[in-house]
């Protein structure tokens, strides 16, 4: 099962592709078939085998703070999410 996932905010992503260079599982690629409202090809998570661990390295290098990261954890360990 999936351990984590990311959401890329396409209002903010400028297609710089830095996140694609740091993902340890190489799961992020540029969506060349579509454009953001500002005309960039956005980054997207392509994770058919649910390999994303939610390590958040992509979020650390994203210059436009476009990436939100989630991770699945046991319910017993969960803290209230402040969103």
């Amino acid at each position: 099962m999936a351990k984590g996932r990311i959401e890329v905010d396409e209002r903010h992503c400028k297609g710089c592709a830095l996140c694609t260079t740091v993902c340890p599982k190489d799961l992020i690629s540029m969506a060349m078939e579509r454009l953001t409202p500002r005309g960039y090809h956005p980054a997207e998570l392509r994770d058919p085998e649910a390999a994303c661990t939610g390590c958040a390295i992509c979020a650390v290098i994203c210059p436009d703070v476009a990436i939100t990261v989630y991770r699945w954890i046991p319910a017993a360990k969960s803290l209230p999410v402040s969103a």
Partner: protein
Amino acid sequence: MDLSEMVESLVYRKPDSLRDVETHYCPGCTHGLAHRLVAEVIDELGMREKAIGVAPVGCSVFAYNYFNMDFAEAAHGRAPAMATGIKRVNPDNLVFTYQGDGDLASIGAAEILHAAGRGENITVVFINNAIYGMTGGQMAPTTLPGQRTSSTPLGRDVEVHGFPLRMCEVLSQLDGAAYVARRSLHDVANIRKAKKALRQAFEVQLNGLGFAMVELLSNCPTNWGMGATDSLVWIEEHMIPMFPLGDYKVGPGVASVGGRES
């Protein structure tokens, strides 16, 4: 494992100290990274309601639109002078300037030197990308020898244009400076180290220890004429040998305030 026992938890989201707006920075520009690190540190310190930033002239001139806190806009290079006044009138507020190399090291060299020399209790975030970004990629005081810019198309010739200024080394000589450090934003590990240095610099101010500055080596993909990924490699290969990373001044009492460990 049974999915029903698992819950999805938030690992990372945009810090509260950043507004949810589009920035005008070029794709891959590390100004966004520096903004985010400052915002994360101010969030962690719980000082957003008490923070006052001073925006410079340069690419980050619109920083007041991007940070979710009080901000003032200074004349070119005069952010440390403005921050001096703000901090002296409002000593309980967290006052910081956010300046580029053209702003801080060129037209604002007098202001930053004397703010550091006086030991003003402010925090300075200094973005060094070795070029004037906003005005079209002209030579800056920090431009590397041999570096091609729009005003040095054959490369910076030190016999004609002089040598680059190393601001951390200069300011660390002043008694008023409490914490002066240089970090880089070219990879994940260094971004994390940069955040720790920023935290240290803000805690120096909160403890009233004096002037603190963190220099962040940054990129300018557009005016360097390369892609975002290549520009980060260029920082590592060309800028770091000229501008070595490290703590240049850790004054009395600084090591004992937090932030140096994660």
